[in-house]
């Protein structure tokens, strides 16, 4: 009898901090167990043994940020049966998308690099799904280790991974944390941000800043923006709350744009 072939898994990185793939290395014991069930055939950060595609499951961290990456992501998609994007950069452009729609990309290059002509960079930082079809998106900055391992395990069983999309606010109530808006007057994105972190920021007495991006039903971002202003933020400061780690996700982008328009009356 021939042993069933282990699924071939690849991990790629685009523009990012490595934090999401580090969640795999940080999985430690689970990593060794996982390594028994799959063949990790391309994971440059972990191994110098690199095999070409095709791959059964491909995980991609990071945003598309250079002309080369636009090509690379299409090649990766063509080699991958299932493509999973992991983390805020891959799913919404990441914190580096703060450069988007500023019209200031060229100035940014000049700010950071003395010789701008050496740098190849796209004007905007893009989520992977802007270029190729994505089978599963796992958000978070970083992606949650439990969600990531759960999703891989489900894919190995041939099941559709289920990821919670309820807001942080619901999780906070479930865990019985004191509301930081009510108790401390802290602006908190919990009502409109999807959970995944376990309501981490409220658990340490501070407002959520949106690492996991908009909840599936992002709710009333307008009302939340107005509440931020009542708490003493200027429209611009309120806009910056949405325009942050996952600020290029459509629901948060619109909310920040609306608030910025308030700041600058026509």
């Amino acid at each position, binding site marked *: 009898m021939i042993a069933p072939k282990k699924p071939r898994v690849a991990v790629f990185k685009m523009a*990012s901090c490595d934090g999401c793939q*580090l969640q795999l290395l*940080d999985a430690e014991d689970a990593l*060794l167990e996982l390594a028994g069930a799959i063949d990790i055939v391309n994971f440059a950060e972990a191994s110098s043994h*690199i095999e070409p595609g095709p791959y059964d499951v491909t995980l991609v961290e990071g945003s598309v940020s250079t002309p*080369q990456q636009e090509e690379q992501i299409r090649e990766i998609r063509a080699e991958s049966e299932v493509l999973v994007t992991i983390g805020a950069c891959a799913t919404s452009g990441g914190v580096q998308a703060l450069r988007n729609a500023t019209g200031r990309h060229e100035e*940014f290059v000049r700010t*950071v690099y*003395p010789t701008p002509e050496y740098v190849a960079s796209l004007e905007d930082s893009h989520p992977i799904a802007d270029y190729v079809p994505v089978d599963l998106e796992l958000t978070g900055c970083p992606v949650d280790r439990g969600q990531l391992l759960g999703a891989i395990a489900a894919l190995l069983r041939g099941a559709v991974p289920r990821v919670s999309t309820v807001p942080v606010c619901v999780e906070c109530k479930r865990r019985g944390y004191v509301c930081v808006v009510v108790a401390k007057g802290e602006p908190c994105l919990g009502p409109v941000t999807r959970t995944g972190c376990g309501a981490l920021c409220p658990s*340490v007495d501070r407002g959520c800043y949106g690492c996991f991006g908009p909840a599936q039903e992002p709710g009333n971002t307008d009302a939340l923006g107005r509440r931020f202003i009542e708490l003493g933020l200027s429209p611009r400061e309120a806009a910056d709350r949405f325009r942050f780690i996952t600020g290029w996700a459509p629901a948060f982008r619109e909310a920040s744009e609306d608030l910025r328009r308030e700041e600058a009356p026509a």
Partner: protein
Amino acid sequence: MTHRSVEVPVIARVEGEGALHITVDGDEITDLRLEIYEPPRFFEAFLAGRHFAEVPDIVPRICGICPVAYQMSAIHGLEMLFGVTPPEGTRELRRLMYCGEWIESHILHVFLLAAPDFLGYPNAIELAKVRPDLVKMALQIKRVGNDLMAAIGGREIHPVSPRVGGFSKAPRRRDLEAFLPRLAWALEQMPGIADFVASLPAPAFPRPVEMVSMVNEGEYPMNEGSMASTDGRRWTFEEYETITNEVHVEHSNALHSVMADTQTPYFLGPLARVNLNAERLTPVARECAERAGLHVPEVDPFFSMAARVVETALAIEESVRIIEGYVPPDPPMATAKPRAGRAMWATEAPRGTLYHRYDVAQDGTILQAKIVPPTSQNLRHMEEDLRLFVPDVLDRPDEELTRLCEMVVRNYDPCISCATHFLRLDVERR
């Protein structure tokens, strides 16, 4: 004349993306470029215009392996500018959090990134098949570091509680005391790990170097102090940008650093720290140095792995000391009132000194930011190491040459996401 070109298109087991191109004519290297193709992310540019309180949430995103380092350099600098004194106990709690990051990052490097090379395995998973106990033990020590970071910061990657002024919430004493048995176990493993590192077959590569590290009165440096080099230079954080210079080279999205006066490279990181602070090592750290054969002055970059083991032991011993004396800061943070001016600070990231500078407006808006990560400061030195190292091993076949070059680079535990944040080897032999 033979022409040889060695290309390493993706340097494996480093953080971030880079490549190495070497062109050799006969036995002369005619071109050697460490190419950093990790894309730029423009942190310094988009920090401008943000509120100072957001900085500790933005800068850790530069690096998932050393987020605490980024938070600490930024927070200390801004507190100094604003004249904020964080509550009593904050200093020790920050040092404890940094110890967690040193443990996690150093063990990750020694066992998951570096050790497989020396033993001829492509990765730690293959190494684990042959030495399961060793790899499992290492992963458990790493977990202690990760868990310490999470216990203080909420999570180990991009912690959320560190703020300008202190912590949004301080951990309870009993939650930290629960680490003591795990730390005691981890410390017991360290002399054996030092023996293991000493047993690894490493090339001998002594070379003249100028090493740079922070130094601080009465303690091994992490969060506070001033700068020192093995050539006798001394400078303050305020002088950092006049003593060193950043230069931009065509093949790299990371800037290179050199000494401003001599335009020569310098070497940061664990080996530099041990050399400049050997008298401040803790007892088990000292024992590990002895067992690993690390006697200062030690100028061979291949002793960097031993230095990481020494510092892991130090970080564990420091963690025990801090937890035993821990009283939670109450309140956990002081109010930070912004003040216009320039903030300049450095701390010791696992890979070396990390310098930040912020120009801040009266209302607390960041006007300009400059971040000089350890890996970009080390890049020039890495290239120079390769130029000196490669001629002696040119007789080796391409595959082995590639592995040796990667080992030279990995001595620095480069963090390319930070430097632009590494290696495709491209050896062109003519």
